């Protein structure tokens, strides 16, 4: 059976060109870049190219840092725990402001710090599913707030938060601002000159790069201690032998992501909108959030009377990969926290499924998916009591 992958917010396929670019760094140029001999030094020019591509990709200045690490989870942990060691322990600031809809790596890091005695404010999203800058304004206190951490775009809904406004607000108040941009690279223009963030994190595997490598942007002059201590790699900011092949792959993936931004916002968006329109034309369906303020590849749809896990199970039988944050699919059995935070009704929290496209998604795949969704929804509604 031909399979269709519509779970690109979870991870993406590695672009074959990226894989080719990584290939020489496994068995040919495998030296440790910290070694003094030629095996080590020969990889330096390639590392520089990769870094140049990453810096260009987010428009960072040479004086800024992009610390190469293992993933955005590591980057987010580095920022949140680093702010604790650098600021909370040395100043009177002892509060972090974040949102209720962050990725678990942010939420759980914050909860960990709460255990160490700091106060964390979890902002709700409004009925549109976004963080209201006025609400942040009420909650930040220049004397107390050590860090504000707000994702750029939400992984479940694709909703884009007004990061420029939020970051500017923090800058005006002298408060550090961090954004988790994993869902943003390759989907929106990311320009750290335009958006005054102090920290920004991303992960290669979300934009057709390899798994196990990510980046942490730190604006020039902002201090944060390393999460991993050890050697002098990354200028002492992140110890551990650098994942060279990963870095090379991520650099190239970043360049391609920027190159395809236009395609993502026209063709991928068109396919997404086509699928969304077709879903909405079915009876008793709903898509969360206005499409204009969502990343161009994401749909979080609800089909009344159809439980989320049952639907992705049924779609999987038909070869289609989607995902659900709905209660039944996860260990925790908790309803999707994003949907609960959006206050759109607990019933929907059990029915949502997420479909996320990529630049590799084809029109044919969308057409086949729509047929499958129709069949699955019809079948599950015939079992369900909602149609009575």
């Amino acid at each position: 059976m031909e399979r269709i992958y519509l779970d690109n917010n979870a991870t993406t396929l590695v672009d074959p060109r990226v894989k080719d670019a990584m290939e020489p760094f496994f068995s040919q140029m495998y030296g440790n870049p910290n070694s003094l001999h030629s095996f080590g030094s020969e990889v330096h020019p390639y590392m520089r190219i990769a870094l140049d591509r990453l810096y260009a990709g987010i428009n960072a200045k040479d004086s800024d840092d992009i610390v190469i690490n293992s993933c955005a989870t590591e980057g987010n942990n580095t920022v949140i725990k680093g702010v604790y060691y650098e600021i909370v322990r040395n100043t009177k600031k002892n509060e972090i402001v974040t949102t209720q809809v962050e990725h678990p790596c942010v939420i759980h890091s914050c909860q960990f710090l709460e255990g160490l005695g700091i106060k964390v404010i979890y902002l709700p999203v409004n009925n549109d599913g976004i963080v209201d800058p006025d609400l942040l304004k009420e909650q930040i206190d220049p004397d107390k707030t050590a860090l504000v951490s707000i994702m750029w775009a939400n992984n479940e809904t694709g909703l884009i938060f007004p990061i420029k406004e939020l970051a500017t607000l923090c800058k005006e108040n002298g408060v550090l601002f961090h954004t988790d941009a994993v869902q943003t690279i390759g989907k929106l223009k990311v320009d750290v000159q335009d958006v005054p963030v102090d920290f920004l994190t991303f992960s290669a595997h979300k934009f057709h790069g390899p798994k196990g490598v990510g980046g942490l942007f730190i604006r020039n002059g902002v201090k944060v201690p390393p999460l991993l201590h050890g050697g002098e790699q990354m200028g002492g900011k992140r110890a551990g032998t650098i994942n060279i092949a990963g870095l090379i792959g991520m650099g190239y993936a970043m360049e391609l992501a920027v190159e395809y931004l236009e395609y993502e916002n026209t063709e991928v968006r068109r396919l997404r909108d086509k699928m969304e329109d077709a879903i909405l034309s079915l009876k008793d369906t709903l898509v969360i959030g206005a499409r204009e303020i969502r990343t161009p590849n994401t749909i979080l749809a609800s089909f009344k009377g159809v439980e989320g896990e049952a639907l992705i199970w049924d779609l999987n039988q038909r070869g289609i990969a989607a995902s659900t944050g709905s209660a039944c699919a996860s260990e925790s059995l908790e309803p999707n926290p994003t949907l609960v935070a959006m206050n759109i009704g607990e019933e929907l929290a059990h029915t949502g499924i997420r479909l996320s496209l990529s630049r590799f998604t084809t029109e044919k795949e969308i057409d086949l998916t729509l047929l499958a969704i129709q069949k699955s929804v019809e079948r599950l509604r015939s079992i369900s009591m909602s149609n009575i």
Partner: protein
Amino acid sequence: MSKTDLIGGALWEQYSAKVNERMSNPQYMGEITEEEAKRMGGKLVIADWGAEVCGDAIRLFWVVDPKTNKILSAKYKTFGCGTAIASSDVMAEMCIGCTVDEALKITNLDVEKALRDDENKTAIPPQKMHCSVMAYDVIKKAASIYKGVNMASLEEEDIVCECARVSLRTIKEVIRLNDLKTVEEITNYTKAGAFCKSCIRPGGHEPRRYYLVDILNEVRQEMENEKIAKIVDQKSFPLMNLIQKHKAVEQVLNEQVRPTLLKEGGNLEVVDMKEQNGITHIYIHYLGVCAGCPSSKTGTLTYIENFLKNELSENIQVIIV
């Protein structure tokens, strides 16, 4: 931690082939109308359980022969995940041919067993066990409708963990018999709390009437009280630790000394206790009229000390501060 846990995400891989088959091709899904029931010569029972807002909801249809109380036909409609659908389907099948009372004995554990491919391997992963409970609850609802009785009257005992069907009595018993000190131990002994985890502490998937943490605290407290009572009963004062000694002293004071002092408008408090060379020094402080009473350092003191010595131990010395 097992390798499966390290890899993670293996939810569907843990479903048995029977679960998959029932999810794909449910056999008893559907409705039964009044006319159909009449034609079969039975009484139609329709029972609803759960709610879509909770993520699980089921409507069960039974046709029951009023003469024999036998279930002639069963169908259902369900909103829920694959496990809920598969469990509902098997449950409906198991009802057919049973009397209503026999059907009442079908539990979610029976449903899960019926879904196994291999009798030694569970049909669904632990966290999905919860999704099969609804199939059991709706039977009770249907039976209560048929019998015209309150659903609670069909409960034989208080169930703490719905997933593993462990009763309050059982849990209290294992805590006592095995001297269990943690919730994890309770789970290891009884499987209570091993599945959806709602019954461990408040804040889980659904609110429960009893939580393991509370039951454990309560039973441990009871056990501790009994232990102290036993020590006091045996008058083995020298074997007690200082806290137990303090409790024992307070008990004697409360029961035998204070009532007399209070009548006179006085009282005393124990401010400290120390152990020295096998002697327990009890430091007391007089309150009310006792504080200024001339006999407080003589007669009253001897009176108090004698009571404690008689009741607890010869090796007690009371000191006024």
